[in-house]
């Protein structure tokens, strides 16, 4: 399969990339690692006039600390996220979930920013960054703006980024001491999640003080299971967790496809939430 023809730009700075995107208007597309875009191009599901390859902008790569926040360059590959000592220490959920994305060769090329900007609700990382209360920083012609993850995922494959904006970094609050687990149900090792649950839990005095639950593929965008989060607060054992997880599908609108009906996805959300929280807390 051969992608449609396009013009190609390879900027070496964020400013240059933003100018190229602004010139292209609605017809530009950002290429980072290409692991989402190239399949779309090959299948002729996207027809950009201009592809802006940001793969050689060094300032977009790498992880640093900013006080209580971890700042991850949008171009940091999955491979590097998994192995990064700062990510492992302060955002273990992100490292653990990223290790389940696709396969090693895809993880060598695929980037955190790319998979978030792609905004696929079946992708693993949108729900994870949502559970972490992350923020996304976009660079545009008029400077930079910070978009909370809860406002970033607008619709199916649609983010809050304007056509002339480039996602430059992902900021997540450090979650030292929180326990976590990403529970994914998928057909084969490298397949998309039919449903995934990202659990981030803070415990105090033997019970759950606070829980963040991100849901993968339970609607057109990644979602937080807010009803389950509230119910989990104060849960002090496996049975309380199981009861709270019954609320995990509330407010979701999962899709129907070859793999699952909406009802089955709702069932999975409840079961996987229970498993994810039990595994995260060691209560299971």
């Amino acid at each position: 399969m051969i992608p449609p023809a396009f013009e190609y730009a390879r900027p070496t700075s964020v400013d240059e990339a933003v100018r190229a995107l602004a010139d292209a208007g609605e017809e530009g597309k950002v290429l980072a690692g290409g692991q989402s875009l190239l399949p779309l191009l090959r299948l002729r599901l996207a027809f950009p006039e201009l592809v802006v390859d940001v793969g050689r902008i060094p300032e977009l790569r790498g992880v640093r600390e900013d006080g209580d926040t971890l700042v991850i360059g949008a171009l940091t590959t999955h491979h590097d996220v998994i192995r990064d000592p700062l990510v492992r220490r302060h955002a273990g959920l992100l490292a653990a979930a990223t290790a389940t994305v696709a396969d090693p060769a895809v993880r060598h090329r695929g980037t955190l920013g790319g998979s978030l900007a792609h905004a696929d609700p079946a992708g693993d990382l949108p729900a994870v960054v949502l559970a972490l209360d992350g923020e996304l920083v976009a660079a545009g012609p008029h400077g930079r703006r910070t978009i909370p993850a809860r406002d970033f995922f607008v619709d199916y494959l649609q983010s809050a980024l304007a056509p002339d904006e480039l996602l430059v970094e992902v900021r997540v609050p450090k979650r030292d001491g929180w326990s976590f687990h990403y529970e994914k149900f998928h057909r084969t090792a490298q397949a998309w999640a039919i449903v995934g649950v990202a659990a981030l839990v803070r415990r105090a005095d033997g019970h759950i003080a606070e829980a963040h639950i991100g849901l993968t593929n339970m609607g057109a965008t990644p979602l937080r299971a807010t009803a389950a989060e509230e119910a989990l607060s104060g849960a002090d054992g496996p049975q309380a967790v199981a009861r709270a997880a019954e609320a995990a599908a509330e407010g979701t609108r999962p899709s129907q496809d070859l793999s699952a009906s909406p009802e089955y996805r709702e069932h999975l959300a409840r079961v996987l939430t229970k498993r994810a929280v039990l595994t995260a807390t060691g209560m299971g």
Partner: protein
Amino acid sequence: MTHIKVNVDGTAYEDDVEPRLLLAHYLRDRLGLTGTPIGCDTSNCGACTVDLDGTTVKSCSVLAVQADGGEVTTVQGLAKDGEWTALQHSFHERHGLQCGYCTPGMIMAARDLLRENPHPTSDEVRQALEGNLCRCTGYQNIVRAVLAASGQQVAEEAPA
């Protein structure tokens, strides 16, 4: 057209290519390096796996222009002076293939694993090869071949 310079299996190439040209097509159609097959063309099967600047990539999911200035190693670049590597020998001796279509990708992915983890467990081998499909389903011998290449004793009867 975009001008690219790529080193492939130790040979330097310069070409004008369309930006939409996939690395897999560049290797096969332009350079004639057909040792890298294209299986699924949807980044699932891993048959087209090559090494780009020190890590594996699926060459159907990389543009040739993205490899500009880079160093590509295909399965055809592994042997030195006609001598197979230990990993290639191991696939031969352990019969780590049936039809052979997935073999170049399997060998490139296994080589990547052994660089990072020279003594993997059987489970780690399977994890590392999760992006490479063998539709003959000959996985047992593939895993045995990788374990044997890592210098580990492999019992023929034991499940790999």
